[in-house]
């Protein structure tokens, strides 16, 4: 079974994003970048499927500028077999990304596509579901367990009320949640080996798709900051403040 894993280069999750002074966007100059944490979980899941003998080949794909080779090499070091870079300088929305990925799906015909449920920059939580719609495949979103059996995949999903398990016909699309697995670190020998694994480059503009967005980013602002509070000395003082000052408890 072939598994396709799209990965995204994003701001490192430990870094707090800062808004540009002119309010046009977030300032990413000289900011530490990394693979989106949910994509790391997706790569890990694919690698585990390969270790179990379920997956035979893992293809990773990333869309963006050449700098995303770094994240593709990381994925290769973690166990992916080959990588595809779809080159574009455009800041694409989820729909355009899903359209590009659907072209890759058409070409590669993976039985399973595993994506992160959301990227921690735009926080859209859309791409996997859109790819499922465009390829007319079933979707198992927010997965905390993925079990492949025969021509189906059972996906346990983290939902607001608890957990839901669905059974999807393959080929299918899965998006990862935090509890699916704990990603490994790449070993030094594997990082060296990854440098020799194949990495193909395609140009997004040559893929025959309309890539311009009809969502205009008008402004990016700092959120309203909370006023600094006070430290209380005791439980008694805390209760006194909550009752008489904040008036949030009786």
């Amino acid at each position, binding site marked *: 079974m072939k598994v396709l894993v799209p990965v995204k280069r994003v701001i490192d999750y430990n870094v707090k994003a800062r808004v540009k002074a002119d309010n046009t966007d977030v300032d990413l100059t000289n900011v530490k970048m990394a693979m989106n944490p949910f994509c790391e979980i997706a790569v890990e899941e694919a690698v585990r499927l390969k270790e179990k003998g379920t997956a035979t080949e893992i293809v990773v794909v990333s869309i963006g500028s050449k700098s995303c080779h770094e994240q593709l090499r990381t994925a290769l070091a973690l166990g992916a077999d080959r990588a595809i870079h779809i080159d574009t300088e455009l800041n694409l929305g989820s729909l355009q990304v899903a359209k590009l990925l659907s072209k890759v799906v058409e070409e590669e015909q993976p039985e399973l596509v595993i994506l992160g*449920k959301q990227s921690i920059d735009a*926080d859209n939580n859309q791409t996997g579901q859109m790819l499922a719609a465009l390829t007319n495949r079933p979707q198992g979103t927010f997965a905390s367990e993925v079990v492949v059996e025969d021509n189906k995949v059972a996906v346990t999903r983290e939902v607001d009320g608890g957990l839901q398990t669905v059974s999807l016909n393959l080929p299918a699309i899965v998006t990862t949640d935090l509890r699916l697995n704990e990603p490994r670190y790449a070993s030094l020998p594997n990082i060296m080996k990854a440098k020799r694994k194949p990495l193909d480059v395609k140009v997004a503009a040559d893929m025959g798709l309309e890539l311009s967005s009809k969502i205009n980013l008008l402004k990016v*602002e700092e959120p309203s900051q909370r006023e600094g509070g006070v430290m209380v000395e005791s439980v008694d003082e805390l209760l006194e403040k909550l009752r008489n000052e904040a008036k949030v408890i009786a």
Partner: protein
Amino acid sequence: MITLLVAEHDNSELKLDTHKAVDAITKMGGDIHVLVAGAGCQSVAEHAAKLQGVSKVLVADHDLLAHGLAENLAPLVVDLADDYSHIVAPATTTGKNFMPRVAAALDVEQISDIIEVVSSDTFKRPIYAGNAIATVQSEYAKKVITVRTAAFDKVSETGSAEIVSLEAVADAGISNFVKQELTESERPELTAAGVVISGGRGMQNGDNFTLLEGIADKLGAAVGASRAAVDAGFVPNDMQVGQTGKIVAPDLYIAVGISGAIQHLAGMKDSKVIVAINKDPEAPIFQVADYGLEADLFEALPELETKL
């Protein structure tokens, strides 16, 4: 201009997320229709018909829709889309699951998690774990939107909309519901509670969450958790508050043994009053807390419970 809102419910109860989404849509202007899609969901439709501002409720009552499978629900919404300028759902795990499938089928870019309506085509939404707020404008004739319900108020139940039943629903035939394990609780739901008390890694284990539950019961509060507490298996996933869990904005949020990582703050920093109990005076949670108590939680919580 007519908006179709897809209701959040569990076939027996209409969720407050729906009431709050109606508030958001009211700010966009125009008529509001609500779709109740489920199985045995007639009483939910009757409830939805009372929401102030709603003029029509469409009911699709069919076994295939019992569990909100996106493969069956999305085509139903897409079929109705012609009549509507806006298609909206609350940004619950249900809405997050099926709405992008609707959007892509309509060849529209979705706007996720709006927290403010600027006009009928312009909205504010948090990005980068809420460290920035983007104002975005959609040029599409049809807008597909999910609403972060914590940012809106619930509308009253003083209306009386007409209820219309929809005919046949098709089975996409590519997915099946297997089972669900829902967390049973007598306490209010996290996203609906006026008071939330959450525990983090500092709680040390799941049993110690009883220390929070005693207080929750006295305050009529819901109990939440940080990702670390969920990952460690102290409590189930549906209790996670944060960027990638539930977003809450209660009148009072009490964070206990939680350090205050940006991902956690993203889920609770719009609460009216924040209390933090932590033994580390440097914990970042104190920077957003209105009242901070530097204390060992194992001493502070029992004392708090007795004195409430």
